[in-house]
């Protein structure tokens, strides 16, 4: 049997080739178009910077100009585009420019006009929302598997096991839950406007903050206190601890014992656990990492940071610096920045999740 000869006899598809060439040629033309603009912008930026530096040398008010320019620029040496992610996995982002999936090689795919999104538990699908609809979609091409029209939809979150999943979301101030195949949609409870959180692992337990400020694990546990100004709920990857971020403090619950550990830390806007359980938070303009109970600053800048995602391998953190239109990757002592995010994603997107390839080799 000559396998090689047989494989080479499998015909190529001439029509497919012509269709693909027309798409590739168009992308190449677009690349040339996009390519030309940054050069001009870079030149303009260089001129602006030179003018600002001169002004600073001449007068004290000029120094303010320099600082303003620095603030505008954000991290220097930023890549002009997202050529490549520093760690394996697929990143989901959403914003004014829709929902996008970004692959490690920097290629990105727009899934549609959604404003919020989240991965399914194993990264096979995406649940996305507009203000009046949630939709389960294929991350490979954005095709819609099912959708539900509901008023004032927000914070869709997909949890459960590979074979039995549920989606929680907010609609018109109520927490609702629907099965992973789009059936059995029902209202569960009144809730404040933060994302519910599915407990990790092969179970279906949902944590959320009720309208009165109590933290609830649906049907299983509730906090003894009510909490003001809640901002986010995050489970540790082993499902043993639940972190509530409020405007003034972090509260780490152990639902098994009912114990709550409080750390007074104001102005935390985002929190995330790595897959090994290390907690990182964004606080104003700094990125903090917890080694024990004490946080240490691993990165800070001039503008406010927003959003946080761990790489699936736990080696990199991604946050955003909207005032400089940048994304910032922090890995140990390395800091990588990418500029022109709004141009690449049609707006300033939020970080909806960075997941591993669903089928690692």
């Amino acid at each position, binding site marked *: 049997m000559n396998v090689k000869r047989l494989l080479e006899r499998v*015909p190529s598809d001439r029509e497919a080739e012509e269709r693909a060439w027309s798409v590739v040629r168009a992308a190449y033309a677009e690349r040339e178009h996009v390519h030309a603009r940054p050069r001009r912008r870079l030149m303009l930026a260089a001129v602006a910077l030179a003018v600002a530096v001169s002004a600073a040398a001449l007068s004290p008010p000029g120094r303010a100009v320099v600082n303003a320019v620095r603030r505008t620029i954000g991290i220097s040496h930023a890549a002009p585009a997202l050529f490549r992610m520093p760690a394996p996995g697929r990143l989901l982002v959403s914003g004014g420019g829709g929902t996008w999936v970004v692959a490690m*090689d920097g290629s990105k795919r727009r899934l549609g006009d959604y404003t919020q999104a989240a991965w399914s538990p194993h990264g096979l699908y995406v649940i996305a929302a507009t203000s009046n609809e949630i939709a389960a979609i294929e991350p490979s091409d954005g095709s819609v598997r099912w959708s539900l029209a509901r008023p004032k939809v927000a914070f869709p979150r997909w949890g459960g096991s590979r074979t039995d999943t549920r989606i929680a979301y907010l609609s018109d101030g109520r927490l609702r839950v629907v099965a992973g195949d789009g059936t059995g949609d029902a209202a569960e409870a009144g809730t404040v406007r933060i994302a519910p959180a599915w407990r990790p692992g092969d179970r279906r337990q949902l944590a959320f903050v009720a309208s009165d400020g109590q933290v609830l694990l649906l049907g299983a546990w509730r906090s003894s206190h009510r909490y003001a100004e809640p901002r986010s709920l995050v489970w540790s990857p082993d499902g043993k601890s639940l972190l509530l971020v409020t405007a003034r403090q972090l509260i780490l619950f152990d639902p098994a014992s009912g114990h709550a550990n409080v750390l007074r830390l104001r102005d935390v806007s985002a929190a995330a656990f790595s897959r090994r359980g290390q907690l990182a938070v964004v606080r104003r303009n700094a990125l903090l990492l917890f080694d024990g109970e004490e946080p240490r600053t691993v990165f800070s800048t001039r503008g406010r940071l927003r959003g946080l995602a761990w790489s699936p391998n736990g080696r990199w953190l991604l946050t955003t610096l909207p005032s400089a239109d940048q994304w910032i990757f922090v890995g140990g002592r390395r800091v990588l920045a990418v500029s022109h995010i709004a141009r690449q994603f049609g707006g300033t997107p939020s970080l909806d999740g960075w997941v591993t390839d669903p089928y690692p080799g």
Partner: protein
Amino acid sequence: MDRREIALIRDAQRGSVRALEQLFRLHWPRAYRAALLVVDDAAAAEDIAQESFLAAVRALDRFDRRRPFGPWLHRIVVNRAIDWSRARTLRREIGDAAVSEPAAPARESGDRAEDIVAALSELGAEHRAVIVLRYLLDYTPGEIAELLDLPRGTVNSRLRRGLDRLEEALR
């Protein structure tokens, strides 16, 4: 890599559509065929090969001309094809009823070629990919191990098992 290909990449980096088209025509048939043999679905193969070329266009400015273009492209094609195949078979996350999509039949014309496509489709995507890389794209087991980030022993065993299954099916 021959001088002609290096020149084509250089010219394409400088903006020559003609050079890009020559590169495309040079590599499309093998890229498409490789994808088709892994996924056994003509429409998906077209998408995968096309997406791989789009990735190449996006990365063209940064491409190191000293490196061969083919292996770089083939890595993208084969890995995407494997991903696609795995995703097709494991979609229960969304409910079984929603996902029973039979693969479109590959458009074949030859008799034995048709047989080998059918025989290959009986193998898992990882096995198909190894067979395709070895016998269609002419990579050594060591190179395949590097391309797919697999131990060399795994590549050898997949090749052996894949060939055994093919021989059995084509008898």
